[in-house]
């Protein structure tokens, strides 16, 4: 079974925001809603700056699906997590549950009224009939039904953002890492928790706060 995933290679992403623009244009996403965005770490630090493009990652065990009180989410046969806007009540629970901040809520009216949730559909539309006008208006373009991949991945100029079956894109990424001889460590343990301690290193000594004069 194909399982559609995104993979962003931080060694290649140049923060051009082409994926963001492609998504906006392809799906005619309303103002204020960003289904995809580029996140940069260590911005401006020479040699340490890394960018990745983030959107819905179409989780295999999606937390948004787990918390939705109206059960508006569903997973398709090809592993894409979609939702039914007719069922969505715009409560925002999915936003709190999502580790990627993927769910977006349009400002549907005055006084900051929150509209129905909108998110990346892996360019697979939604519950309306495929390639219909109604589907396009609610969910954007259904490229998968046209035999195409998401516009963001296909548009990526450096091919940092890969989209497709997890097995296929993992193979592409693996070969890329082997050829260049680095880059797989970017999202590894040491990125999250720092480099392993040197053997024989002492734990850092916590400094005592300076004594106060007694006045408050």
């Amino acid at each position, binding site marked *: 079974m*194909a399982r559609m995933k995104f993979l962003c290679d931080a060694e290649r992403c140049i923060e051009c925001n082409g994926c963001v623009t492609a998504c906006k244009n392809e799906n005619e996403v309303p103002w204020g809603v960003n289904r995809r965005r580029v996140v940069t770490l260590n911005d401006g630090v020479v040699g340490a700056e890394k960018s990745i493009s983030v959107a819905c990652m179409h989780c*295999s*065990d999606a937390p948004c699906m787990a918390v939705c009180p109206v*059960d*508006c989410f*569903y*997973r*398709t*046969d*090809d*592993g894409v997590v*979609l939702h*039914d806007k007719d*069922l969505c009540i715009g409560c925002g629970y999915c936003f709190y549950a999502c580790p990627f901040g993927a769910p977006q809520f349009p400002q549907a009216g005055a006084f900051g009224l929150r509209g129905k949730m909108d998110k990346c559909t892996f360019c*697979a*539309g*939604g*519950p309306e*009939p*495929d*390639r219909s006008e109604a589907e396009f208006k609610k969910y954007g373009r*259904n490229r*998968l*039904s*046209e*035999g*195409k*991949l998401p516009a963001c*991945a*296909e548009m990526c100029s450096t*091919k940092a953002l*890969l*989209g*497709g*079956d997890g097995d*296929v*894109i993992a193979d*592409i990424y693996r*070969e*890329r890492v082997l*050829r260049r001889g680095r880059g797989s460590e970017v999202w590894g343990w040491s990125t999250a928790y720092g480099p392993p301690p040197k053997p024989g290193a002492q734990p850092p000594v916590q400094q005592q706060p300076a004594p106060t004069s007694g006045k408050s």
Partner: protein
Amino acid sequence: MMRVAFLLAAVLAAVTALSACGEKEQVVVYKQGKYQGKPDNRSWDNESPVAELRGGKWTKGDRSSWEESIKQRQLAQHEYQRINR
């Protein structure tokens, strides 16, 4: 006796620890045009578009032919292969 108990505990611990490496099977039920009660079409149930596709046309309703077509599209992201063509 102690040795057997220790061995048993070790095996149990190993099984418990390794169970985290497994993957829960995903069961996607598609019944009468609905996924978990939500109506939707499947990508391969559409006619292949007239436009020339990299992976070629698929047969309507044939999942494997659609998957093969989209796989060719995915492999086009592999620039090492594109260079060597």
